[in-house]
Protein backbone atom coordinates (compact mmCIF):
# COMPACT_ATOMS: atom_id res chain seq x y z
CA UNK A 1 0.00 0.00 0.00
CA UNK A 2 2.83 2.37 0.75
CA UNK A 3 4.74 1.74 -2.45
CA UNK A 4 4.04 3.75 -5.53
CA UNK A 5 6.14 1.74 -7.91
CA UNK A 6 5.64 -1.79 -9.08
CA UNK A 7 9.26 -1.94 -10.24
CA UNK A 8 10.67 -3.19 -6.98
CA UNK A 9 13.29 -5.64 -8.09
CA UNK A 10 16.11 -5.96 -5.53
CA UNK A 11 19.53 -5.09 -6.87
CA UNK A 12 21.96 -8.01 -6.62
CA UNK A 13 25.44 -7.59 -8.15
CA UNK A 14 24.18 -8.97 -11.48
CA UNK A 15 21.54 -6.24 -11.68
CA UNK A 16 24.17 -3.55 -11.18
CA UNK A 17 26.31 -5.20 -13.89
CA UNK A 18 23.32 -5.23 -16.27
CA UNK A 19 22.67 -1.60 -15.55
CA UNK A 20 26.31 -0.66 -16.10
CA UNK A 21 26.26 -2.40 -19.51
CA UNK A 22 23.12 -0.54 -20.53
CA UNK A 23 24.66 2.68 -19.26
CA UNK A 24 27.76 2.21 -21.43
CA UNK A 25 25.56 1.47 -24.46
CA UNK A 26 23.45 4.54 -23.76
CA UNK A 27 26.51 6.78 -23.33
CA UNK A 28 28.06 5.44 -26.55
CA UNK A 29 24.83 6.00 -28.52
CA UNK A 30 24.51 9.52 -27.19
CA UNK A 31 28.17 10.25 -27.96
CA UNK A 32 27.74 9.52 -31.68
CA UNK A 33 24.56 11.61 -32.08
CA UNK A 34 26.34 14.58 -33.78
CA UNK A 35 27.54 12.24 -36.55
CA UNK A 36 24.10 10.76 -37.26
CA UNK A 37 22.42 13.85 -38.66
CA UNK A 38 19.86 13.93 -35.85
CA UNK A 39 18.82 17.46 -35.01
CA UNK A 40 21.22 18.25 -32.11
CA UNK A 41 18.90 20.77 -30.41
CA UNK A 42 16.20 18.14 -30.11
CA UNK A 43 18.61 15.71 -28.44
CA UNK A 44 20.03 18.42 -26.17
CA UNK A 45 16.57 19.42 -25.05
CA UNK A 46 15.67 15.79 -24.47
CA UNK A 47 18.86 15.31 -22.43
CA UNK A 48 17.99 18.24 -20.17
CA UNK A 49 14.54 16.82 -19.59
CA UNK A 50 15.99 13.34 -19.11
CA UNK A 51 18.22 14.61 -16.30
CA UNK A 52 15.24 16.43 -14.82
CA UNK A 53 13.09 13.29 -14.96
CA UNK A 54 15.89 11.19 -13.44
CA UNK A 55 16.17 13.66 -10.56
CA UNK A 56 12.40 13.51 -10.08
CA UNK A 57 12.53 9.71 -10.25
CA UNK A 58 15.09 9.62 -7.44
CA UNK A 59 12.39 11.01 -5.14
CA UNK A 60 9.36 9.08 -6.32
CA UNK A 61 10.92 5.82 -7.44
CA UNK A 62 13.31 5.35 -4.53
CA UNK A 63 11.92 7.58 -1.80
CA UNK A 64 8.22 7.15 -2.56
CA UNK A 65 7.74 10.94 -2.56
CA UNK A 66 5.70 12.34 -5.45
CA UNK A 67 6.76 15.92 -6.03
CA UNK A 68 4.21 17.72 -8.16
CA UNK A 69 6.25 20.91 -8.24
CA UNK A 70 9.60 19.88 -9.67
CA UNK A 71 9.33 22.55 -12.35
CA UNK A 72 10.19 25.11 -9.66
CA UNK A 73 13.78 23.85 -9.58
CA UNK A 74 14.03 23.86 -13.35
CA UNK A 75 12.71 27.41 -13.56
CA UNK A 76 14.65 28.79 -10.59
CA UNK A 77 17.99 27.47 -11.82
CA UNK A 78 17.13 28.72 -15.29
CA UNK A 79 16.41 32.25 -14.05
CA UNK A 80 19.54 32.30 -11.87
CA UNK A 81 21.82 31.12 -14.67
CA UNK A 82 20.22 33.43 -17.22
CA UNK A 83 20.56 36.41 -14.88
CA UNK A 84 24.18 35.56 -14.06
CA UNK A 85 25.12 35.22 -17.73
CA UNK A 86 23.26 38.17 -19.12
CA UNK A 87 23.25 40.81 -16.38
CA UNK A 88 26.35 39.93 -14.39
CA UNK A 89 28.22 38.72 -17.49
CA UNK A 90 29.67 35.71 -15.71
CA UNK A 91 31.38 32.92 -17.71
CA UNK A 92 29.27 29.77 -18.43
CA UNK A 93 30.72 27.56 -15.71
CA UNK A 94 30.04 30.15 -13.01
CA UNK A 95 26.59 30.73 -14.51
CA UNK A 96 25.80 27.03 -14.09
CA UNK A 97 27.13 27.13 -10.52
CA UNK A 98 24.89 30.10 -9.70
CA UNK A 99 21.88 28.22 -11.10
CA UNK A 100 22.67 25.04 -9.21
CA UNK A 101 23.28 27.04 -6.02
CA UNK A 102 19.89 28.73 -6.50
CA UNK A 103 18.06 25.45 -6.83
CA UNK A 104 20.05 24.04 -3.89
CA UNK A 105 18.89 26.85 -1.61
CA UNK A 106 15.33 26.47 -2.89
CA UNK A 107 15.34 22.72 -2.33
CA UNK A 108 16.62 23.13 1.26
CA UNK A 109 13.79 25.54 2.06
CA UNK A 110 10.98 23.73 0.22
CA UNK A 111 12.22 20.33 1.37
CA UNK A 112 12.22 21.43 4.99
CA UNK A 113 8.59 22.51 4.60
CA UNK A 114 7.20 19.71 2.47
CA UNK A 115 8.68 16.59 4.12
CA UNK A 116 6.58 17.41 7.16
CA UNK A 117 3.71 15.54 5.51
CA UNK A 118 3.66 12.25 3.65
CA UNK A 119 2.00 10.74 0.64
CA UNK A 120 -0.79 12.66 -0.95
CA UNK A 121 -0.23 15.76 1.19
CA UNK A 122 3.41 15.90 0.11
CA UNK A 123 2.28 16.05 -3.51
CA UNK A 124 -0.22 18.84 -2.78
CA UNK A 125 2.31 20.85 -0.75
CA UNK A 126 5.00 20.73 -3.45
CA UNK A 127 2.37 21.71 -6.02
CA UNK A 128 1.25 24.67 -3.91
CA UNK A 129 4.86 25.76 -3.27
CA UNK A 130 5.62 25.75 -6.98
CA UNK A 131 2.50 27.82 -7.62
CA UNK A 132 3.63 30.26 -4.92
CA UNK A 133 6.97 30.59 -6.67
CA UNK A 134 5.22 31.02 -10.03
CA UNK A 135 3.35 34.06 -8.74
CA UNK A 136 6.54 35.47 -7.19
CA UNK A 137 8.41 35.11 -10.49
CA UNK A 138 5.44 36.62 -12.33
CA UNK A 139 5.85 39.83 -10.33
CA UNK A 140 9.59 39.91 -9.57
CA UNK A 141 11.41 42.49 -11.74
CA UNK A 142 14.51 40.41 -12.57
CA UNK A 143 12.50 37.68 -14.34
CA UNK A 144 10.85 40.21 -16.71
CA UNK A 145 7.44 38.62 -16.03
CA UNK A 146 5.65 37.32 -19.09
CA UNK A 147 8.54 38.19 -21.43
CA UNK A 148 11.14 36.11 -19.62
CA UNK A 149 14.89 36.62 -20.02
CA UNK A 150 15.68 36.53 -23.74
CA UNK A 151 18.82 36.43 -25.87
CA UNK A 152 21.17 34.94 -23.32
CA UNK A 153 24.84 34.85 -24.47
CA UNK A 154 26.25 31.32 -24.60
CA UNK A 155 29.88 32.33 -24.19
CA UNK A 156 33.07 30.30 -23.94
CA UNK A 157 33.23 27.42 -21.46
CA UNK A 158 36.56 27.59 -19.54
CA UNK A 159 37.59 30.15 -22.13
CA UNK A 160 38.27 27.47 -24.78
CA UNK A 161 34.95 25.79 -25.70
CA UNK A 162 32.75 27.89 -27.98
CA UNK A 163 29.23 27.08 -26.81
CA UNK A 164 27.59 28.79 -29.78
CA UNK A 165 28.77 25.81 -31.90
CA UNK A 166 26.03 23.16 -31.65
CA UNK A 167 28.45 20.22 -31.53
CA UNK A 168 30.52 21.72 -28.71
CA UNK A 169 27.40 22.65 -26.78
CA UNK A 170 26.04 19.15 -27.34
CA UNK A 171 29.04 17.49 -25.70
CA UNK A 172 28.96 19.93 -22.78
CA UNK A 173 25.28 19.13 -22.19
CA UNK A 174 26.00 15.42 -22.59
CA UNK A 175 28.78 15.55 -19.99
CA UNK A 176 26.43 17.39 -17.61
CA UNK A 177 23.70 14.82 -18.16
CA UNK A 178 26.01 11.81 -17.73
CA UNK A 179 27.56 13.28 -14.57
CA UNK A 180 24.12 13.87 -13.05
CA UNK A 181 22.92 10.45 -14.15
CA UNK A 182 25.96 8.69 -12.62
CA UNK A 183 25.51 10.59 -9.36
CA UNK A 184 21.90 9.39 -9.17
CA UNK A 185 22.94 5.86 -10.15
CA UNK A 186 25.59 5.86 -7.43
CA UNK A 187 23.11 7.22 -4.89
CA UNK A 188 20.46 4.57 -5.43
CA UNK A 189 23.03 1.78 -5.13
CA UNK A 190 24.60 3.22 -1.99
CA UNK A 191 23.69 2.42 1.64
CA UNK A 192 21.87 5.76 1.62
CA UNK A 193 19.78 4.56 -1.33
CA UNK A 194 18.94 1.32 0.48
CA UNK A 195 17.66 3.24 3.48
CA UNK A 196 15.65 5.43 1.14
CA UNK A 197 14.03 2.35 -0.42
CA UNK A 198 13.23 1.00 3.03
CA UNK A 199 11.48 4.29 3.82
CA UNK A 200 9.46 3.92 0.64
CA UNK A 201 8.44 0.38 1.57
CA UNK A 202 7.66 0.98 5.23
CA UNK A 203 8.54 4.23 6.90
CA UNK A 204 7.33 3.18 10.36
CA UNK A 205 9.61 0.18 10.36
CA UNK A 206 12.56 2.24 9.16
CA UNK A 207 11.94 4.60 12.08
CA UNK A 208 11.71 1.70 14.51
CA UNK A 209 15.09 0.48 13.24
CA UNK A 210 16.55 3.76 14.37
CA UNK A 211 16.81 5.66 11.10
CA UNK A 212 16.01 9.35 11.24
CA UNK A 213 13.82 9.13 8.15
CA UNK A 214 13.18 12.87 7.95
CA UNK A 215 16.88 13.52 7.43
CA UNK A 216 17.08 10.90 4.71
CA UNK A 217 14.03 12.29 2.95
CA UNK A 218 15.32 15.85 3.21
CA UNK A 219 18.71 14.85 1.82
CA UNK A 220 17.05 12.99 -1.08
CA UNK A 221 14.85 16.02 -1.73
CA UNK A 222 17.85 18.37 -1.77
CA UNK A 223 19.80 16.08 -4.08
CA UNK A 224 16.83 15.73 -6.41
CA UNK A 225 16.07 19.45 -6.45
CA UNK A 226 19.71 20.41 -7.01
CA UNK A 227 20.12 18.00 -9.92
CA UNK A 228 16.85 19.24 -11.39
CA UNK A 229 18.46 22.66 -11.12
CA UNK A 230 21.50 21.46 -13.06
CA UNK A 231 19.10 20.40 -15.82
CA UNK A 232 17.54 23.87 -15.71
CA UNK A 233 20.93 25.59 -15.97
CA UNK A 234 21.99 23.45 -18.95
CA UNK A 235 18.65 24.13 -20.63
CA UNK A 236 19.39 27.87 -20.59
CA UNK A 237 22.34 27.32 -22.94
CA UNK A 238 20.20 25.24 -25.29
CA UNK A 239 17.08 27.40 -25.39
CA UNK A 240 18.88 30.73 -24.79
CA UNK A 241 15.96 31.96 -22.73
CA UNK A 242 14.38 31.51 -19.33
CA UNK A 243 10.65 31.97 -19.11
CA UNK A 244 7.61 31.38 -16.94
CA UNK A 245 6.63 28.21 -18.83
CA UNK A 246 9.47 26.44 -17.01
CA UNK A 247 7.85 27.14 -13.62
CA UNK A 248 4.25 26.31 -14.57
CA UNK A 249 2.24 23.46 -13.15
CA UNK A 250 1.95 22.06 -16.68
CA UNK A 251 5.73 21.61 -16.72
CA UNK A 252 5.66 19.76 -13.40
CA UNK A 253 2.98 17.51 -14.87
CA UNK A 254 5.14 16.91 -17.92
CA UNK A 255 8.03 15.75 -15.71
CA UNK A 256 5.71 13.32 -13.95
CA UNK A 257 4.43 12.09 -17.31
CA UNK A 258 7.93 11.45 -18.68
CA UNK A 259 8.86 9.36 -15.68
CA UNK A 260 5.55 7.51 -15.67
CA UNK A 261 5.83 6.61 -19.36
CA UNK A 262 9.41 5.40 -18.98
CA UNK A 263 8.81 3.59 -15.72
CA UNK A 264 8.72 4.88 -12.13
CA UNK A 265 11.59 3.49 -10.10
CA UNK A 266 13.60 2.24 -13.06
CA UNK A 267 17.11 3.52 -13.73
CA UNK A 268 16.69 4.24 -17.44
CA UNK A 269 12.93 4.75 -17.65
CA UNK A 270 13.01 8.54 -17.15
CA UNK A 271 15.54 8.90 -20.00
CA UNK A 272 13.37 6.89 -22.40
CA UNK A 273 10.25 8.73 -21.25
CA UNK A 274 11.88 12.14 -21.70
CA UNK A 275 12.93 11.36 -25.28
CA UNK A 276 9.44 10.08 -26.14
CA UNK A 277 7.59 13.03 -24.64
CA UNK A 278 9.96 15.67 -26.07
CA UNK A 279 9.69 14.02 -29.51
CA UNK A 280 5.92 13.99 -29.16
CA UNK A 281 5.89 17.69 -28.25
CA UNK A 282 7.90 18.44 -31.40
CA UNK A 283 5.85 16.39 -33.83
CA UNK A 284 2.48 17.40 -32.45
CA UNK A 285 3.32 21.08 -32.03
CA UNK A 286 0.85 21.97 -34.81
CA UNK A 287 -2.11 20.36 -33.09
CA UNK A 288 -2.58 23.12 -30.50
CA UNK A 289 -4.55 22.12 -27.45
CA UNK A 290 -4.97 18.55 -28.67
CA UNK A 291 -1.41 17.92 -27.41
CA UNK A 292 -2.77 18.46 -23.91
CA UNK A 293 -5.59 16.00 -24.57
CA UNK A 294 -3.10 13.43 -25.86
CA UNK A 295 -0.90 13.92 -22.81
CA UNK A 296 -3.89 13.42 -20.55
CA UNK A 297 -4.83 10.27 -22.43
CA UNK A 298 -1.30 8.90 -22.01
CA UNK A 299 -1.51 9.64 -18.28
CA UNK A 300 -4.79 7.75 -17.99
CA UNK A 301 -3.56 4.85 -20.14
CA UNK A 302 -0.32 4.54 -18.18
CA UNK A 303 -2.05 4.49 -14.81
CA UNK A 304 -4.80 2.09 -15.88
CA UNK A 305 -2.95 -0.25 -18.24
CA UNK A 306 0.78 -0.24 -17.75
CA UNK A 307 1.94 1.15 -14.49
CA UNK A 308 5.41 -0.29 -14.90
CA UNK A 309 6.12 1.99 -17.86
CA UNK A 310 8.09 1.03 -20.97
CA UNK A 311 11.42 0.21 -19.34
CA UNK A 312 9.66 -1.39 -16.38
CA UNK A 313 7.72 -3.73 -18.72
CA UNK A 314 10.89 -4.68 -20.59
CA UNK A 315 12.77 -5.30 -17.35
CA UNK A 316 9.85 -7.35 -16.04
CA UNK A 317 9.71 -9.42 -19.24
CA UNK A 318 13.41 -10.26 -19.16
CA UNK A 319 13.39 -10.48 -15.37
CA UNK A 320 16.25 -8.01 -15.24
CA UNK A 321 16.75 -4.78 -13.40
CA UNK A 322 17.04 -1.79 -15.71
Amino acid at each position, binding site marked *: *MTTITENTVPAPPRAIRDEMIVFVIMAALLAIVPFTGLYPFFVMQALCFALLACAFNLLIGYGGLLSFGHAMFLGTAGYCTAHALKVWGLPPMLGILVGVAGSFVLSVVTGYISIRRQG*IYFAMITL*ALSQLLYFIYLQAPFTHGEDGIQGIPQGWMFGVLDLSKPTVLYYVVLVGFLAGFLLIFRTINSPFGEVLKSIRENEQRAISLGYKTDQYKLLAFILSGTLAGLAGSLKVFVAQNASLTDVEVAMSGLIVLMTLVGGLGTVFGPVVGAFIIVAMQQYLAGFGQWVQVIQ*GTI*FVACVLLFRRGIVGEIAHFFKRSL
Partner: protein
Amino acid sequence: MQALYAQLLVGLINGSFYALLSLGLAVIFGMLNIINFAHGALYMIGAFCAYFLLNIAGLGYWWALLLAPIIVGIFGMVLERTMLQWIAGLDHLYGLLLTFGLALILQGVFQNFFGSSGLPYAIPDQLRGGMNLGFMFLPIYRGWVVVFSLVVCIATWFLIERTRLGAYLRAATENPTLVRAFGINVPRMITLTYGLGVGLAALAGVLSAPINQVRPLMGENIIIVVFAVVVIGGMGSIMGSIITGFALGVIEGLTKYFYPEASNTVVFVLMVLVLLVKPTGLTGRAA
Protein backbone atom coordinates in the same frame (compact mmCIF):
# COMPACT_ATOMS: atom_id res chain seq x y z
CA MET B 1 -14.05 51.76 3.80
CA GLN B 2 -16.29 51.02 0.82
CA ALA B 3 -13.42 49.32 -0.95
CA LEU B 4 -12.59 47.26 2.11
CA TYR B 5 -16.15 45.95 2.38
CA ALA B 6 -16.21 45.23 -1.33
CA GLN B 7 -13.02 43.17 -1.06
CA LEU B 8 -14.40 41.39 2.00
CA LEU B 9 -17.43 40.41 -0.06
CA VAL B 10 -15.25 39.17 -2.92
CA GLY B 11 -13.29 37.23 -0.32
CA LEU B 12 -16.46 35.68 1.06
CA ILE B 13 -17.53 34.64 -2.44
CA ASN B 14 -14.17 33.07 -3.21
CA GLY B 15 -14.36 31.49 0.21
CA SER B 16 -17.74 29.94 -0.74
CA PHE B 17 -16.11 28.31 -3.78
CA TYR B 18 -13.12 27.14 -1.72
CA ALA B 19 -15.49 25.69 0.87
CA LEU B 20 -17.68 23.88 -1.69
CA LEU B 21 -14.65 22.50 -3.54
CA SER B 22 -12.61 21.46 -0.50
CA LEU B 23 -15.73 19.90 1.00
CA GLY B 24 -16.12 17.75 -2.13
CA LEU B 25 -12.42 16.86 -2.08
CA ALA B 26 -12.63 15.83 1.57
CA VAL B 27 -15.75 13.69 1.05
CA ILE B 28 -14.17 11.95 -1.96
CA PHE B 29 -10.86 11.44 -0.18
CA GLY B 30 -12.64 9.90 2.79
CA MET B 31 -14.33 7.20 0.71
CA LEU B 32 -12.09 6.66 -2.30
CA ASN B 33 -8.68 7.59 -0.88
CA ILE B 34 -8.18 9.66 -3.99
CA ILE B 35 -7.28 13.31 -4.29
CA ASN B 36 -9.47 14.36 -7.15
CA PHE B 37 -7.26 16.50 -9.38
CA ALA B 38 -10.12 16.65 -11.90
CA HIS B 39 -12.16 18.65 -9.38
CA GLY B 40 -11.25 21.96 -11.01
CA ALA B 41 -12.12 20.64 -14.47
CA LEU B 42 -15.49 19.38 -13.22
CA TYR B 43 -16.15 22.77 -11.61
CA MET B 44 -15.51 24.26 -15.05
CA ILE B 45 -17.84 21.73 -16.70
CA GLY B 46 -20.54 22.66 -14.19
CA ALA B 47 -20.34 26.26 -15.43
CA PHE B 48 -20.39 25.08 -19.06
CA CYS B 49 -23.45 22.95 -18.30
CA ALA B 50 -25.26 26.09 -17.18
CA TYR B 51 -24.14 27.82 -20.38
CA PHE B 52 -25.32 24.96 -22.62
CA LEU B 53 -28.62 24.59 -20.79
CA LEU B 54 -29.32 28.26 -21.38
CA ASN B 55 -28.14 28.54 -24.98
CA ILE B 56 -29.25 25.15 -26.34
CA ALA B 57 -32.15 23.97 -24.21
CA GLY B 58 -33.33 27.43 -23.19
CA LEU B 59 -33.32 26.48 -19.51
CA GLY B 60 -32.37 29.33 -17.21
CA TYR B 61 -30.27 29.76 -14.11
CA TRP B 62 -32.59 28.00 -11.66
CA TRP B 63 -32.81 24.89 -13.81
CA ALA B 64 -29.03 24.96 -14.20
CA LEU B 65 -28.61 25.13 -10.45
CA LEU B 66 -30.57 21.90 -10.20
CA LEU B 67 -29.55 20.06 -13.40
CA ALA B 68 -25.83 20.88 -13.74
CA PRO B 69 -24.80 19.15 -10.50
CA ILE B 70 -26.92 16.12 -11.48
CA ILE B 71 -25.44 15.92 -15.00
CA VAL B 72 -21.87 16.36 -13.77
CA GLY B 73 -22.56 13.99 -10.88
CA ILE B 74 -23.69 11.28 -13.32
CA PHE B 75 -20.64 11.98 -15.49
CA GLY B 76 -18.48 11.62 -12.39
CA MET B 77 -20.12 8.32 -11.50
CA VAL B 78 -19.37 7.03 -15.00
CA LEU B 79 -15.73 8.05 -14.51
CA GLU B 80 -15.66 6.26 -11.18
CA ARG B 81 -17.20 3.07 -12.56
CA THR B 82 -15.04 2.96 -15.70
CA MET B 83 -11.69 4.15 -14.34
CA LEU B 84 -11.25 5.06 -10.70
CA GLN B 85 -12.56 1.79 -9.32
CA TRP B 86 -9.77 -0.13 -11.07
CA ILE B 87 -7.07 1.61 -9.08
CA ALA B 88 -8.88 1.31 -5.74
CA GLY B 89 -6.35 -0.91 -3.95
CA LEU B 90 -3.25 0.88 -5.24
CA ASP B 91 -1.15 3.68 -3.82
CA HIS B 92 -3.07 6.96 -3.38
CA LEU B 93 -0.69 8.68 -5.75
CA TYR B 94 -1.99 6.74 -8.76
CA GLY B 95 -5.39 8.32 -8.13
CA LEU B 96 -3.77 11.74 -8.25
CA LEU B 97 -2.00 10.93 -11.51
CA LEU B 98 -5.11 9.44 -13.12
CA THR B 99 -7.34 12.37 -12.22
CA PHE B 100 -4.59 14.80 -13.30
CA GLY B 101 -4.70 13.11 -16.71
CA LEU B 102 -8.49 13.40 -16.77
CA ALA B 103 -8.23 17.11 -15.94
CA LEU B 104 -5.81 17.62 -18.85
CA ILE B 105 -8.18 15.84 -21.24
CA LEU B 106 -11.30 17.72 -20.14
CA GLN B 107 -9.63 21.14 -20.10
CA GLY B 108 -7.91 20.46 -23.42
CA VAL B 109 -11.16 19.48 -25.15
CA PHE B 110 -13.02 22.55 -23.90
CA GLN B 111 -10.09 24.81 -24.82
CA ASN B 112 -10.16 23.45 -28.35
CA PHE B 113 -13.77 24.36 -28.86
CA PHE B 114 -14.03 27.54 -26.81
CA GLY B 115 -10.53 29.03 -26.75
CA SER B 116 -9.30 30.67 -23.58
CA SER B 117 -11.59 33.68 -23.43
CA GLY B 118 -14.68 33.91 -21.25
CA LEU B 119 -18.29 33.37 -22.33
CA PRO B 120 -20.77 35.71 -20.66
CA TYR B 121 -23.56 34.30 -18.49
CA ALA B 122 -26.20 36.72 -17.30
CA ILE B 123 -27.34 37.11 -13.71
CA PRO B 124 -30.97 35.84 -13.43
CA ASP B 125 -33.62 38.57 -13.33
CA GLN B 126 -34.73 37.76 -9.78
CA LEU B 127 -31.23 38.38 -8.41
CA ARG B 128 -30.35 41.54 -10.35
CA GLY B 129 -29.70 44.87 -8.71
CA GLY B 130 -28.47 45.57 -5.24
CA MET B 131 -29.26 46.76 -1.78
CA ASN B 132 -27.85 49.69 0.14
CA LEU B 133 -26.90 48.35 3.54
CA GLY B 134 -25.96 51.78 4.85
CA PHE B 135 -22.25 51.04 5.10
CA MET B 136 -21.93 49.45 1.68
CA PHE B 137 -23.74 48.58 -1.55
CA LEU B 138 -24.49 44.85 -1.79
CA PRO B 139 -25.19 43.34 -5.22
CA ILE B 140 -27.97 40.86 -4.54
CA TYR B 141 -26.45 38.06 -6.62
CA ARG B 142 -23.21 38.15 -4.62
CA GLY B 143 -25.07 38.00 -1.35
CA TRP B 144 -27.09 35.09 -2.73
CA VAL B 145 -23.94 33.12 -3.63
CA VAL B 146 -22.56 33.42 -0.10
CA VAL B 147 -25.83 32.51 1.63
CA PHE B 148 -26.69 29.66 -0.74
CA SER B 149 -23.18 28.14 -0.53
CA LEU B 150 -23.33 28.29 3.23
CA VAL B 151 -26.70 26.51 3.21
CA VAL B 152 -25.40 23.79 0.85
CA CYS B 153 -22.28 23.31 2.97
CA ILE B 154 -24.25 22.95 6.15
CA ALA B 155 -26.73 20.60 4.45
CA THR B 156 -23.83 18.41 3.33
CA TRP B 157 -22.41 18.47 6.82
CA PHE B 158 -25.82 17.47 8.18
CA LEU B 159 -26.16 14.66 5.62
CA ILE B 160 -22.82 13.16 6.57
CA GLU B 161 -22.70 13.78 10.30
CA ARG B 162 -26.34 13.49 11.33
CA THR B 163 -28.24 11.06 9.07
CA ARG B 164 -28.31 7.28 8.82
CA LEU B 165 -26.87 7.35 5.30
CA GLY B 166 -24.05 9.54 6.58
CA ALA B 167 -23.39 7.09 9.40
CA TYR B 168 -23.00 4.27 6.85
CA LEU B 169 -20.67 6.50 4.89
CA ARG B 170 -18.50 7.31 7.88
CA ALA B 171 -18.46 3.66 8.90
CA ALA B 172 -17.41 2.62 5.39
CA THR B 173 -14.61 5.20 5.51
CA GLU B 174 -13.27 3.59 8.66
CA ASN B 175 -13.65 -0.05 7.68
CA PRO B 176 -15.25 -0.92 4.32
CA THR B 177 -14.89 -4.67 4.71
CA LEU B 178 -16.80 -4.78 7.96
CA VAL B 179 -19.55 -2.51 6.63
CA ARG B 180 -19.92 -4.81 3.61
CA ALA B 181 -20.27 -7.75 5.94
CA PHE B 182 -23.35 -6.02 7.39
CA GLY B 183 -24.96 -6.19 3.95
CA ILE B 184 -24.38 -2.63 2.82
CA ASN B 185 -23.38 -2.16 -0.79
CA VAL B 186 -20.11 -0.27 -0.29
CA PRO B 187 -19.04 -0.05 -3.96
CA ARG B 188 -22.34 1.63 -4.80
CA MET B 189 -21.85 4.03 -1.90
CA ILE B 190 -18.37 4.86 -3.21
CA THR B 191 -19.82 5.66 -6.63
CA LEU B 192 -22.54 7.84 -5.10
CA THR B 193 -19.98 9.62 -2.93
CA TYR B 194 -17.90 10.50 -5.95
CA GLY B 195 -21.05 11.73 -7.69
CA LEU B 196 -21.91 13.87 -4.66
CA GLY B 197 -18.40 15.33 -4.44
CA VAL B 198 -18.17 16.34 -8.09
CA GLY B 199 -21.81 17.50 -7.99
CA LEU B 200 -20.76 20.03 -5.34
CA ALA B 201 -17.95 21.16 -7.64
CA ALA B 202 -20.43 21.61 -10.50
CA LEU B 203 -22.73 23.60 -8.22
CA ALA B 204 -19.85 25.93 -7.40
CA GLY B 205 -19.26 26.23 -11.14
CA VAL B 206 -22.86 27.31 -11.81
CA LEU B 207 -22.73 29.82 -8.95
CA SER B 208 -19.52 31.30 -10.29
CA ALA B 209 -20.67 31.53 -13.95
CA PRO B 210 -22.42 34.94 -13.70
CA ILE B 211 -19.56 36.43 -11.65
CA ASN B 212 -16.42 35.09 -13.32
CA GLN B 213 -17.77 34.19 -16.79
CA VAL B 214 -17.51 30.69 -18.24
CA ARG B 215 -13.90 29.84 -19.18
CA PRO B 216 -12.25 26.50 -20.02
CA LEU B 217 -9.36 27.25 -17.65
CA MET B 218 -11.45 28.62 -14.78
CA GLY B 219 -10.71 25.52 -12.70
CA GLU B 220 -7.00 25.32 -13.37
CA ASN B 221 -5.74 27.75 -10.75
CA ILE B 222 -8.52 27.43 -8.22
CA ILE B 223 -7.86 23.72 -7.72
CA ILE B 224 -4.29 24.42 -6.58
CA VAL B 225 -5.51 27.04 -4.11
CA VAL B 226 -8.06 24.50 -2.87
CA PHE B 227 -5.26 21.97 -2.39
CA ALA B 228 -3.51 24.50 -0.17
CA VAL B 229 -6.79 25.05 1.69
CA VAL B 230 -7.06 21.30 2.20
CA VAL B 231 -3.48 21.09 3.49
CA ILE B 232 -4.19 23.92 5.93
CA GLY B 233 -7.52 22.55 7.15
CA GLY B 234 -6.84 18.86 6.91
CA MET B 235 -9.34 16.49 5.33
CA GLY B 236 -10.36 14.79 8.55
CA SER B 237 -13.32 16.99 9.34
CA ILE B 238 -16.20 18.23 7.19
CA MET B 239 -16.85 21.31 9.29
CA GLY B 240 -13.11 21.99 9.27
CA SER B 241 -13.05 22.20 5.46
CA ILE B 242 -16.06 24.52 5.39
CA ILE B 243 -14.66 26.92 7.98
CA THR B 244 -11.15 26.90 6.51
CA GLY B 245 -12.54 27.55 3.04
CA PHE B 246 -14.54 30.61 4.07
CA ALA B 247 -11.80 31.91 6.39
CA LEU B 248 -9.11 31.74 3.73
CA GLY B 249 -11.38 33.45 1.22
CA VAL B 250 -11.86 36.33 3.66
CA ILE B 251 -8.12 36.54 4.40
CA GLU B 252 -7.44 36.64 0.67
CA GLY B 253 -10.01 39.45 0.29
CA LEU B 254 -8.39 41.45 3.10
CA THR B 255 -4.98 40.98 1.49
CA LYS B 256 -6.37 42.38 -1.76
CA TYR B 257 -7.27 45.53 0.13
CA PHE B 258 -4.18 45.98 2.32
CA TYR B 259 -1.42 44.53 0.14
CA PRO B 260 -2.73 43.62 -3.32
CA GLU B 261 0.64 42.32 -4.59
CA ALA B 262 0.36 39.34 -2.24
CA SER B 263 -3.28 38.45 -2.93
CA ASN B 264 -2.32 35.57 -5.26
CA THR B 265 0.17 34.11 -2.84
CA VAL B 266 -1.30 34.68 0.60
CA VAL B 267 -3.03 31.29 0.82
CA PHE B 268 0.20 29.49 -0.08
CA VAL B 269 2.21 31.54 2.42
CA LEU B 270 -0.35 30.68 5.10
CA MET B 271 0.01 27.02 4.14
CA VAL B 272 3.77 27.25 4.72
CA LEU B 273 3.26 28.92 8.10
CA VAL B 274 0.73 26.30 9.20
CA LEU B 275 3.07 23.50 8.13
CA LEU B 276 5.90 25.05 10.13
CA VAL B 277 3.81 25.50 13.27
CA LYS B 278 1.39 22.57 13.13
CA PRO B 279 2.35 20.07 10.41
CA THR B 280 -0.83 18.01 10.76
CA GLY B 281 -3.06 20.87 9.62
CA LEU B 282 -5.45 22.88 11.76
CA THR B 283 -8.04 20.18 12.37
CA GLY B 284 -5.45 17.86 13.70
CA ARG B 285 -5.50 14.23 12.66
CA ALA B 286 -2.37 12.91 10.97
CA ALA B 287 -2.78 11.39 7.51
